[in-house]
């Protein structure tokens, strides 16, 4: 889990954002979403590693997805996530923010040669 999510309770809804779900999601929805997103990341689908939060975007990996699923399966943790849930702004548009590596190249400040 990223420190940002633990340091501020406002981010408590992160499991919903990571799995792109809403508080009305059922156990089946959680399973399905976990499977689909993990598969997308494994297959290298463009932008699959990004998810939207109310202020921009963050990156996710298989570990974060597993943690999100575990939180949503636990009723107490899920209740807290539901309480703080806010719809992420960019659920439909995942192409406006580019990854850091692209920005570095675009601004001409990529340093370490590969």
């Amino acid at each position, binding site marked *: 889990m990223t420190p940002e999510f633990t340091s501020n309770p406002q981010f408590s809804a992160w499991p919903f954002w990571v799995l792109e779900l809403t508080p009305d999601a059922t156990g089946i929805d959680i399973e399905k979403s976990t499977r689909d997103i993990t598969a997308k990341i494994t297959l290298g689908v463009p932008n699959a590693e990004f998810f939207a939060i109310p202020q921009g975007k963050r990156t996710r990996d298989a570990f974060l997805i597993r943690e999100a699923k575990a939180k949503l399966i636990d009723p107490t943790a899920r209740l807290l996530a539901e309480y703080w849930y806010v719809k992420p702004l960019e659920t439909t548009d995942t192409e406006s923010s580019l990854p850091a590596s692209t*920005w570095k190249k675009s*601004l001409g400040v990529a340093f370490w040669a590969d």
Partner: protein
Amino acid sequence: MEEIARSSILGGLGLVIGIIILVYRLNNKGGTKSDQRANQYGYALLIWAIFLLLSFIPKSTSLISIATNVALIACTPLLLLPSLLSALIACFGRVKLSYYIGKLGFFYFGRNPTAGGLLRGYQAAKTLKNVEHQREALLWLRSRYQKHTGKIYSGEMVMYIIIDALLTKPNDDEYLAQRLNLLDGIGQSSIPRGVSVLACKLALIPALSRGDWDAINDIAEQWNTPASNGIAKYLKEFYGRYVKYSHVFSKFDCWFWSLVIFRNKDIMKLSRDTIDKLKERENSFEPEASFIESLWINNNKKMSEVEKKNQLESLLANHVIDKWKNRASTIGVLQIDNAWDAIERSVHQHPQFKIDHDCIEDDEQYERKQSLQKNLRYLEGSIQRKLSEKLPGSGFEHYMDWLKVLNILHELKTHKHEQLLAFSIVHNVLWNWAADLWNNKKERCLVHFIATVCAPLALECNFKEMHKILSGITRGEFK
């Protein structure tokens, strides 16, 4: 032919000797800033005169002779503009040469020729194809700066942070951005344009990749230096005009600065996407946004005590408690009261409602705080010792000491009470140290930086005299 060869050899020799003398002089400067600059001007003019003279020696009217003369004369602007010459050399990856010639760019880099050298060295290192060579180049640049004995200026402070962060945590954009954020408060007037643009771009990477416009605006504000920084100016105007819908910011200014950075297609695309998204949001605006949503909207706004109380009451009202307890039983929570307690605790831990002395901290946080305070006391002792022994110390050494103190104050920023406590511990030593740097060592730029950071803290701690003097320094009342 003999004449041409002779003039070419003499011209080349004059150029090499001139540059060697100039670099030698700059590396061994001991006088004040004006002396140093006079030396630079004098030597640059001397080299130019020699070069110009030598280029006119061949008197033959043959085509080759005229071509040689023209070529030699064409080279003189490069000699007069070493910043341009060093930029050209940097394109070929010649780190040391671009560093030394960059140090001569006193027209372009002003009183920051060393920053200019470091910038050109960095640019040359960037073109290298091998990571190990790049690392060696950065290590060499850092070693050059660590040996620098003159006074320190803002541009040099920035370049040191960039090079050091790249070496300490390569490829960690967040770390580099955090280190650059530490420099909020340095005197901006002496930061050369190239350095300001580079620092701004590096600091922007994490915020741009998150699409976080509040953070983008903060960074643009920090690097909107008097030396024209197009990217910072455009982002600041765009944020003011479109993201915040402020009528203070004109459409024309935003359009004008977009012309300056139009080549950066990704920034232009981000701007267009943001405008589209904001229009969409405006069309689907719900006047009664939930209280949680309003917390996101007012993320960076400081709420008044009344607003805080109202917000808190709304978040923890009786009907809200009932609603969430019902929901808890629906989703199968066994200990409903405990689950609600966890929610209530999380509300109180929200930065908008958290009260420093009431906040619950874990063992790790407590240990970290203790360790920071211990380090601060050690630093205080170290600075005090240097002061009492009247050790001269270079501007760079003083800057290193200040960065350590600043880092601790910055880390304690989230605990305002602890930060003020830490400041009150070191304020006496900081006060004497700043006075020594200002009066004896004439490190005006560094003291300006210290004063900008410490003046608000002194006000909050009620150190009136200290606040008055430090504010005077930041306003330029003392010369």
